């Protein structure tokens, strides 16, 4: 199957970026302009894990979990602030060609144990008890609870959406409780990583929102500095989403970014605005603030909660 490998070597390198402190703008510029690189939507579709910038210590376990979720053959490349994008792009292409030609893959960083032992436990050996109990195949099953929008008390799914989620600002870890796809509870576990002023440029902020609206092409154009060619951008953002007194709503902020202005308004504790929102609305709301503004607002809200109100 060597012809398949030579054919694959010519393909664009599938990369999943885990963006650390200070490198958000460079990574976005890299993917928008460098040829031969493709940003994978999830690590399952990627072969290279690009660790950009420095990852703080508390985010290391999350990086290990992320690294182990890439299918084999995989490889990790670090990109420190000083290295120019042409060099990293060449290194990525070269790493991908090695992998395509059968270079050895990286082993797991975490031990190979299921979250809870389940083999052979319980009457049927799948670790469960009765209908809903136990940890069938390693995890318990979600339990019902009150819903804040619609009186049906159905299962509440709780999970920590990690620092390297493609739809959240890099570094932000949220503990979310979901009923269906509506967020019922949201807590901030870690603040977004600090990014330089360049990441708050209106073009980059607008590009992030356009990507969430499904407009890959227009987002790349914005990142490269041209006007986006797309229809119904303003209409797609729901009116009144994330409206704060003095900061307008997500639509106004997107309009301002598209016309080059940077909106001044800062939200007051955005994390508390998440419960009640559907998943897509929540991601649009978080992306409708510049990374710096959002980080300051979340930090300010966190200090507020530490001081007993």
């Amino acid at each position, binding site marked *: 199957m060597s012809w398949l490998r030579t054919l694959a070597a010519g393909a664009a390198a599938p990369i999943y970026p*885990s963006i650390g402190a200070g490198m958000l703008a460079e990574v976005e510029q890299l993917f928008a302009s460098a040829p031969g690189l493709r940003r994978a939507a*999830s*690590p*399952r579709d990627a072969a290279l894990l690009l660790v950009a910038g420095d990852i703080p210590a508390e*985010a290391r376990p*999350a*990086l290990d*979990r*992320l690294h*182990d*979720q890439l*299918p*084999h053959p995989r490889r990790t490349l670090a990109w420190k602030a000083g290295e120019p994008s042409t060099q990293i792009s060449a290194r990525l292409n070269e790493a991908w060609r090695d992998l395509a030609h059968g270079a050895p893959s990286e082993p*797991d*960083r*975490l*031990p*190979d*144990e*299921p*979250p809870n032992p389940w083999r052979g436990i319980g009457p049927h050996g799948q670790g469960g008890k009765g209908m809903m109990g136990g940890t*069938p*195949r*390693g*995890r*318990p*099953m*979600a*339990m*019902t609870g009150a*819903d804040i*929008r*619609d009186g*049906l008390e*159905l*299962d509440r*799914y*709780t*999970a*920590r*959406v*990690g*620092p*390297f*989620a*493609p739809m*959240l600002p890099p570094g932000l*870890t949220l503990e979310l409780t979901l*009923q*269906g*796809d*509506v967020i019922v509870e949201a807590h901030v576990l870690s603040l977004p990583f600090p990014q330089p002023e360049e990441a708050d440029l209106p073009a980059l902020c607008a590009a992030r929102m356009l990507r969430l609206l499904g407009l890959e092409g227009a987002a790349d154009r914005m990142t490269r500095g041209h006007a986006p060619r797309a229809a119904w951008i303003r209409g797609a953002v729901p009116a009144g989403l994330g409206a704060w007194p003095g900061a307008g709503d997500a639509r106004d902020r997107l309009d301002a970014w598209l016309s080059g202005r940077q909106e001044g308004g800062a939200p007051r504790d955005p994390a508390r605005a998440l419960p009640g929102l*559907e998943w897509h609305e929540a991601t649009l709301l978080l992306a409708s603030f510049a990374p710096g503004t959002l980080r300051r607002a979340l930090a300010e809200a966190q200090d507020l909660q530490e001081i007993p109100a």
Partner: protein
Amino acid sequence: MDALLIIAAWTGLAALAAWGMQRQAGATAPLAAPFLGGGTPDTHAWQRYHFRPYTMALVFIAFEMEMMFMYPWAVVFVREGAKALAEMGMFLGILSVGLLYGWREGIFRWQ
């Protein structure tokens, strides 16, 4: 009879192709964990998922049934002439009352 053969052929061919090409290598536990941007879930993703537009789904079943009535109507429409247009106008009028009611009660969104 040949219709069933065609359907069976396409489905069989596709199933064989999929089964043959995909060999799921036994994944280690960290590789198998669900992707949450580096985060961890508490429970299985399979849950009593709160499908928010549930009333829309029920109204949709009734609306779908009307389509089944409209297909034969379409075949004889030209030969039946204006009578068919009037009758279908009445049929669609009755059903658009249901649509208006649903819209006014606000069921066409996430509940």
